[in-house]
């Protein structure tokens, strides 16, 4: 037989043998049956019985057994525990030893290892314990969970650490056998741990089987459901916001913290299916109006800040349909403002698709007036889309005015670049405002430029800005100057105004309409003045010839304590200041509201002031005291 021929039987044998072995192997060693749920016990089946393939066996070093295992463990435990702040090298060396030991120890020895580790204190030993626990959990999560549940918190392992161990083991157990892990967690004797661990398992289950997670939460009773539903919702909504909202949105809306989460997820739903998201919200009829409104704001905010502005159009379409039916106009204008700030052409193009012209202009006006305080100029394109007239002038003046406050050069440059006669009124207002900025540093220069303004209208528009800025340094001078710019006022008091005929009232209002800013600045200036020199402020106001202006200003001074959120002045000091008003009738009318507020705030102190002062007429004093305290004689 030639050489190749001699090899033929060998090759044939190789081929037949390999094929037979390949085919027969599964028959000889059938697949292992699915492992039964691990018993709820700390003693798992010995690892040697696990169905390893031969190659796995070769990769796994043999476990030590009996005395050898004990000896290896003793040898490790005989090492002195690491100091709390042991150097990193020491920790690395020890963790290397521990890792090596863990590959040798049978699972049955881990109980003894942890009995020793559980008593060791300090960060370094804590790190080693966690390292070993990771291995235990991988090998036998139920046993690790039982150990953690039996821990008594102490110096080495506090309650928080115990809870972490328990949760880690329970999670690992549940990944292999959810039912056993959950059943066990649900019977933990400590109710807080029971709720926390089983709730955590349900939240994790909810990521893959939310319906079952919810059913189990419901089966745990109302209190358990209330404690777990938010986490179930969060996990569920991550994959399927609409289903999560349909199942749990309603109860979570009643919860302060849950509400924001529902709104956030509603936003996600609304991006994919705005119609359905709003339809769901409309079914929440039991919600109080504030909650509903806040949820809507939050929803719109979510969608408006969506990464893709292309997603905004279908959402805006649904909002527009609702607004045309009289619902949610404000939310739509908010969306428009936000959209326009990110993509003006797209937002304006969409706006043109709204057939209702009045609604379109409502939206533009609202969106332009609710500009972003950081970038008011971004609202200008919206304001410019309004039809020429007071609505557009106001919107433009507001946005440009705030821009001019932050960046006057940019605002002026914009105005110069838009040489449009329809912007004249707006430009005058902005100029007035800029004169105000000048007046803050150099009132004389501002006044000189104001005198040179060409038109009377422009001077009227600019005057309040100058007075407002000037008042910061010299409120007395500012108050005198702005009051001198007012036309002659009728010789009537506030109470007389109501006695005028509707036509006379309307005529008066018309006459002073342009001076609204003057009155407002005069009021705030006098409040500022009264905080630094109340006697002079009161005396000056008392000297005004117009009864209406005099009483109006004094009344405002008594009630207003300066800008919003300013500190409330001492009530008694303020009462003393008002008591200096010489005319008894005006004094009564101005003092009464102040004292009424004081009585609400501090009944005894206010009553004592009234009892010891004669500034108020006896009738007014009695009326106030009886109203504040009906038991007052």
């Amino acid at each position, binding site marked *: 037989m030639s050489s190749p021929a001699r090899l033929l039987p060998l090759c044939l*044998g*190789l081929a037949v043998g390999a094929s037979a072995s390949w085919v027969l192997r599964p028959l000889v060693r059938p697949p292992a049956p699915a492992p039964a749920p691990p018993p709820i016990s700390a003693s798992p089946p010995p*690892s040697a019985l*696990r169905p390893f393939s031969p*190659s796995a066996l070769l990769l796994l*070093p043999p476990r030590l057994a009996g005395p050898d295992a004990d000896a290896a463990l003793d040898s490790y435990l005989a090492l002195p525990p690491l100091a709390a702040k042991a150097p990193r090298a020491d920790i690395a060396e020890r963790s290397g030893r521990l890792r*090596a030991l863990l590959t040798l120890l049978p699972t049955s020895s881990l109980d003894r290892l942890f009995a020793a580790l559980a008593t060791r204190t300090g960060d370094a030993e804590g790190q080693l314990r966690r390292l070993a626990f990771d291995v235990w959990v991988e090998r036998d999560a139920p046993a690790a969970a039982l150990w953690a549940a039996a821990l008594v918190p102490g110096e080495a392992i506090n309650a928080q650490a115990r809870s972490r161990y328990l949760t880690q083991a329970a999670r690992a157990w549940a990944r292999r056998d959810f039912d056993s892990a959950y059943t066990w967690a649900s019977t933990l004797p400590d109710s807080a741990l029971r709720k926390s661990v089983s709730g955590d398992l349900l939240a994790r289950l909810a990521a893959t089987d939310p319906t079952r997670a919810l059913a189990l939460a419901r089966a745990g009773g109302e209190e358990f459901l209330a404690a777990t539903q938010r986490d179930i919702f969060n996990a569920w909504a991550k994959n399927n916001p609409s289903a999560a909202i349909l199942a749990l949105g309603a109860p979570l809306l009643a919860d*302060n913290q849950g509400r924001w989460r529902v709104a956030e997820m509603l936003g996600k739903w609304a991006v994919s299916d705005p119609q359905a998201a709003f339809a769901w919200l409309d079914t929440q009829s*039991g919600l109080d109006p504030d909650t509903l409104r806040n949820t809507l704001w939050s929803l719109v905010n979510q969608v408006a800040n969506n990464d893709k502005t292309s997603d905004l159009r279908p959402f805006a379409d649904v909002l527009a349909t609702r607004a045309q039916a009289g619902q949610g106009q404000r939310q739509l204008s908010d969306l428009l403002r936000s959209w326009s700030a990110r993509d003006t052409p797209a937002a304006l193009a969409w706006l043109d698709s709204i057939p209702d012209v009045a609604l379109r202009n409502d939206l533009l006006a609202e969106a332009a007036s609710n500009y972003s305080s950081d970038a008011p100029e971004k609202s200008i394109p919206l304001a410019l889309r309004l039809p020429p007239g007071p609505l557009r002038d106001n919107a433009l003046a507001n946005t440009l005015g705030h821009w001019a406050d932050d960046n006057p050069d940019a605002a002026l440059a914009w105005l110069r670049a838009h040489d449009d006669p329809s912007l004249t009124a707006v430009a005058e207002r902005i100029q007035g405002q800029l004169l105000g900025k000048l007046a803050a540093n150099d009132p004389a220069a501002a006044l000189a430029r104001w005198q040179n303004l060409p038109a009377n209208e422009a001077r009227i528009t600019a005057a309040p800005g100058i007075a407002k800025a000037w008042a910061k340094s010299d409120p007395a001078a500012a108050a005198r100057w702005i009051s001198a710019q007012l036309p002659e006022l009728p010789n009537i008091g506030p109470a007389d105004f109501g006695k005028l005929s509707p036509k006379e009232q309307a005529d008066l209002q018309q006459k002073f309409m342009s001076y609204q800013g003057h009155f407002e600045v005069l009021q705030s200036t006098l409040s500022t003045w009264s905080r630094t020199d109340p006697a002079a402020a009161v005396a000056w106001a008392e000297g005004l010839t117009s009864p209406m202006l005099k009483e109006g200003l004094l009344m405002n001074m008594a009630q207003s304590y300066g800008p919003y959120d300013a500190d409330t002045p001492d009530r008694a000091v303020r009462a003393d200041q008002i008591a200096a008003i010489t005319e008894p009738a005006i004094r009564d009318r101005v003092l009464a509201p102040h004292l009424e507020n004081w009585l609400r705030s501090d009944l005894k102190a206010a009553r004592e002031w009234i009892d010891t002062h004669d500034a108020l007429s006896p009738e007014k004093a009695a009326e106030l005291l009886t109203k504040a305290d009906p038991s007052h004689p």
Partner: protein
Amino acid sequence: MIAPLALGLALGATAAWFVPHPSASGQSAAHSAPPAVPTAPFALPSWSWRESATPPTLAADSASSAIVAWHALRAPDGRPADFATRADALRALLLRLPLTSFPRFLAPLVGAKLSEDDRSLRQIAFSTWIESDPSSAATWALASGPDQQDLARQAVSTWSSRDPRAAAVWACALPDQETARRFAALTLPALAALDSTQALALASARGDAFLDQLLPDLLTTLAKTDPATALRTYGPRVWKNGGGFWRLRQPLGEWAARDPAAAIAWIVAQPSKDRGEMGQWLGELAQNNAQRNLVATALATQPGVPNRQSALGNMLSRWANQDPVEALAWLDTLSDRNLRIAILERSANITYSDHPERTLPLALAMPEGANRSDRLGQLLSQWATKDAPAALAWLRDNASAPGVAAASDSVRSTLLATIARDEPATAVAEWQALPEGPLKTKAISTITAAWGQTDPAAALQWSTAQSKNDYPSSELVYTWARKDGPAALQWAESISEPNIRSYALNALAGNWQDKAPRAATADLYAQIKDPAVRTQFVTQHVQEWQTRDPAAAKSWLAAHPDLGIKN
């Protein structure tokens, strides 16, 4: 002939026995991909723990075989080995794996679609690598694609904690600006704690924008040792670049804990949009109980603090929610009665509190007066909606305290409203049984508001029948008008008090957030029976409509000549 055949049979059968069967469908990427070299049984070299604490490291070629064998681990039925087996084998392998072999081991475990088990196993291996060689681990993770960014962060954090200088230099030299910024933010603060000059130099080397992005974190680190200098030197730049108070809150808190007066003065000197904002910042300055006493006292006594009352009110409401006893103890140290009252009046932000009852001690510390009763009423009513028995028990226990009797009216009114939402008839019956007085009057509006959520028409009709002088909720009127405009109009017209009637008629058109279509409102107002009132409302409505859509308004007027209103 027989011997070679038998030998062939034996060898072939043995070899095939150990070759894994094709994997089942649905396996992870790591297991469905064929191993790089043919699988062969691989035995880890024997090792005795008695001779050395840890096993010897594998030679490079053995490591490669071991890696292949590990990735090919199978159960006897050919399916992937179970997690515990793979983890066990992995831990044994990792003990022996040379550091240079980690990339090879991890390569099949890269990707976004790994199973949870594979992710856990990868994490075990990567954590082991990080412990010994975080810099290589970081570089590998970063080069392994966007899905490994989390791994890169883990490695860089460990590297930075061990060798902040090297980690920061590496991060700041990364070619991509955004990646460099992200990893510089992880590493530069640690370097700044060691060598602030080098940290700032590294951040500056990539330009101002890069430095501006990192400066808040650097400042936070620098402030741990010397907050005053850190904030005075770099604070204004962070503030100016849009960081503002909230970005600097932590270092400011550190400073306030050491020198509250200086920290407050520094904040007050920063630009703010309005005074309310300043009050909010100052109220948020203290971040823990230890700082609160110090900061509160400085805020109360330091001259020139704007919005002192508001800042202290903000602070106290949170403080009282967490520790009312301590908050009140501090309040009792205040000698300025006016300031004390103002703080108390501004302190109870109950709107979003899940525990309104925690703020009750603050309400009880307010002096006698209507504000105290109102505050107690608000808190107790809010509490009653969450836990009515507890709130009622509190009312019984504190019945003699000033203001509590008046507050109990609010609570009862709230409870009536709760009933009215679902059972209006019961609520109305209970309301009728109440004695005449302020409670009975007050309960009208709360019952109406709650009932109106389900039936605005019935609620408003009931409300106006009980009280002729109360303004109805414009929101309810509008809700009714949207459902049944003519009925709502008829009801509004029937109101006898002229101002309230005008208010209700106006509300038919909408409110500050919702508006009915202009034409629908015009049609509705055209049905007003009283000619003078009709003319007034149609005219003012059309005037307003003209500012929005003159053509439509004009056309509507032209279509209604019978109204006698000129354009």
